[in-house]
């Protein structure tokens, strides 16, 4: 079935008006095959309506990701005195590399001539963040905190993982091509983070007596648990035409952990602490449009309700008083992506893709920790049928965030300056069809 150009254009325009940009979102299951129309095992994540497919499907996913970001803390706009500029201003860098696996299994069967049911289970780490800013070995020895870099007042080292075991069910009505699915997601959140901190939210290094004033606050062993839902629908009126929508429910996790505080030369103090972690709702739209016999056009669109994250306040559980306040003022995000699948051979598919995502973080609350600006991405990949029951896919995706200049920071201490961020993803997906 050949699509007319206007149909493709209309779909693209529609997609472009929606969006996606997700701080600490690393889900790239299937690489460039991603999206709510994905019929593979990782429909478990993207859209459980895709589970309603006969047979046993096993998906093994491995993602290698790297990040390279910089933050140049400007001395003047942050009010850093010249004598401590070496300690509280200048460029900080962070680079990270990680490998994240995921697994999904689905089994579908006909329950009547008209209906197919599928069930599945999987385990993902769709959202995670790990940033350990590079130490500044050239920092003046006189300032013992400076080795953690000039960004340390906002972030030194953070590890956040949301591990999501999932199960789901899908049901397809073959005559209409309509399928629906629902998946409860069991999210386990772990969070640890450390930053420099003074009780008066200044970046003072020494007090009036010349004694150490700079401190640290560590939030460790933070854990939370919550069940969310993923629901989706897919309509496939023809073999080469499909439309799908999925909804990933958000949640606000109350992450409970231990706070360790060292202020100046005072003895260390500890407290049970709680910090909220808002994860937004996400709605994804996608379409598979067979434009020619050798080209499938796949527009994707995403909206994420990031405005739920207005601020994060870590509180002392003993008295409810705030220990740490981080302004966020996040904005809802939109993203539009376009994927092109070239069927170059009965066994081979070449994927190319591009996209643009708006950032959740306004400049005034941008900071070296949790913040993302607008970004564009490009990628390329392939899928090859190794046998009738074995399919291999691989993709490379480059995500480049637009540089951000901040001169009106709301954070305390302020984090005005220049930010850069680039991330790269390489995915490897093995699909077993039995």
């Amino acid at each position, binding site marked *: 079935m050949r699509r007319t150009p206007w149909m493709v254009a209309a779909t693209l325009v529609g997609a472009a008006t929606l969006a996606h940009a997700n701080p600490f979102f690393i889900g790239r299951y299937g690489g460039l095959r991603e999206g709510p129309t994905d019929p593979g095992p990782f429909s478990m994540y993207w859209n459980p309506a895709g589970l309603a497919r006969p047979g046993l499907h096993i998906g093994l996913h491995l993602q290698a990701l790297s990040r390279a970001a910089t933050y140049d803390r400007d001395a003047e706009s942050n009010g850093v005195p010249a004598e401590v500029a070496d300690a509280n201003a200048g460029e900080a860098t962070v680079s990270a590399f990680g490998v*994240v696996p995921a697994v999904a299994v689905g089994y579908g069967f006909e329950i009547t001539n008209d209906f197919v049911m599928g069930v599945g289970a999987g385990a993902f780490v769709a959202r995670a963040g790990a940033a350990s800013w590079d130490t500044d070995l050239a920092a003046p020895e006189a300032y013992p905190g400076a080795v953690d870099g000039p960004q340390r007042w906002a972030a030194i080292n953070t590890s956040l993982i949301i591990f999501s075991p999932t199960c789901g069910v899908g049901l397809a009505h073959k005559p209409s091509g309509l399928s629906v699915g629902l998946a409860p997601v069991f999210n386990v959140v*772990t969070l640890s983070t450390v930053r420099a901190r003074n009780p008066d*939210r200044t970046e003072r290094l020494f*007090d009036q*007596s010349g004694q150490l004033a700079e401190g640290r606050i560590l939030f460790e062993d933070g854990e939370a648990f919550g069940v969310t839902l993923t629901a989706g629908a897919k309509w496939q009126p023809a073999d080469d035409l499909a439309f799908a929508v999925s909804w990933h429910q958000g949640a606000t996790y109350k992450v409970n952990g231990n706070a360790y505080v*060292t202020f100046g030369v005072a003895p260390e103090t500890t407290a049970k602490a709680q910090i909220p972690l808002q994860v937004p709702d996400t709605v994804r739209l996608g379409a598979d449009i067979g434009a020619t016999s050798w080209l499938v056009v796949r527009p994707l669109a995403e909206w994420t309700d990031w405005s739920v994250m207005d601020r994060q306040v870590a509180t002392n559980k003993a008295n409810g008083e705030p220990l740490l306040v981080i302004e966020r003022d996040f904005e809802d995000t939109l993203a539009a992506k376009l994927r092109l699948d070239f069927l170059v051979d009965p066994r081979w598919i070449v994927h190319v893709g591009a996209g643009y995502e708006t950032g959740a973080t306004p400049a005034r609350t941008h900071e070296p920790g949790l913040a993302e600006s607008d970004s564009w991405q490009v990628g390329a990949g392939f899928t090859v049928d190794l046998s009738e029951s074995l399919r291999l896919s691989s993709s490379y995706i480059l995500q480049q965030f637009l540089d951000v200049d901040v001169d009106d920071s709301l954070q305390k201490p302020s984090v005005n300056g220049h930010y850069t961020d680039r991330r790269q993803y390489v995915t490897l997906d093995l699909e077993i069809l039995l």
Partner: protein
Amino acid sequence: MRAHATVAALALVVGLAGCSEDTPRKDYDDYRARTADRRANACVPMGPPESRFADVRGRWFVYALLATGIELGLRVELSGDTSEAPNDLQARFWLDRADPDVDPPLTVVMTRVHEDGTFVLVADLALPPELLGGDTTVLASVVLAVSTLSEHAWCGDATGNVTSPIVIDLMGSTFFATRDEVDALQKGDIPFQCPRVECVDEPSSDSGPTGDGGPPLDGGVPRPAAPDLSDVASTRRDLTGHYLMHARLAGAIALKLWVSMLYAEATDADGRVAAFVEGSLRRATDLPGSTPLITFSTPVAADGRFDIWLPGLMLDSPLGPVNADILLTSATLPVGFCGRAAGTVRSPITLDLANTNFAMTPWAPGTPLPDPLPNSCETAMTLVEPPPVADSGVADSGAADGGAADGGVADGGSPDAG
């Protein structure tokens, strides 16, 4: 299930941070390890100086430095019916920004001043968020163990706890109080601790800034040998007051600074009198209440001689920041004091401060410069009474004749190459 899932999650994310050992905990522990010496060697007075009874009724300004690095200014009014010991007094507390004549006190407590002048003030304070730049009201239960130095000054150690938002032990906090019947003093105008008669792990003389005490800020600056001042007669006396320091560093950089001094004496168990000065340096153009460039504390010998060690002194100048390590060896004169300096100017030019002379002339901050304005012991010794102010030239005019005579820019402590 939760714990197992967490472990599974961590196991799944293999090397997400690039290195499994590079954890927030490790960075936190590393910082504590790097600063362990600074905590262990923090100068904590081992006990109060010799206390003596005095009538302490009246209004006081208290400047406290809490162990968390928080500076706290309080106004305290002590009132009672008698001046004799033991003296039961009522203490009313206000924040330094409050007007005790108008505003209600934060808290009112009772105390008894004992025969030796010691007394204890226990105050539960609610410090509003804006005071500390934080997000919540800070609740603190502070115990001030007071030693009376004179009828004009008391000081001591503060203990207790911040109780909210998080419990913090205030052990190691200090305070100093001086009479302020007109509520004019601000934080930084007076010392924040007793004269240091005893101190655990007193930093060595070659450790760095904070005047004559505290840990090094610069990794350790060698203290130079004190210049010979034996040719200058000196007699110990109360040096409390404000002075204008006039010097010409190495004959090249004209320097004028505002020096505030508070003199105190304490008698030890053997009846020996130990004298100290606590002081602060500001630019001559700074306004009262402004943050000092540096503070210092030093003992005064029986003949009135004392050294002020100012490592890492930073000043602005038209040539850029001036960074110097200066030792001021001083002799007490009938009017003001004077001396010779040693040390090094490190930037913007490197200068050995040998043969540098200076003089400290009594002065009221914010008023025109004294005239004459000596810059050495030789010229200062000729003063028999505080000099009158000059008719022309003000402290911040940059045209004071003393500076001009030096060929430098006397713009309130902004040195210039002469």
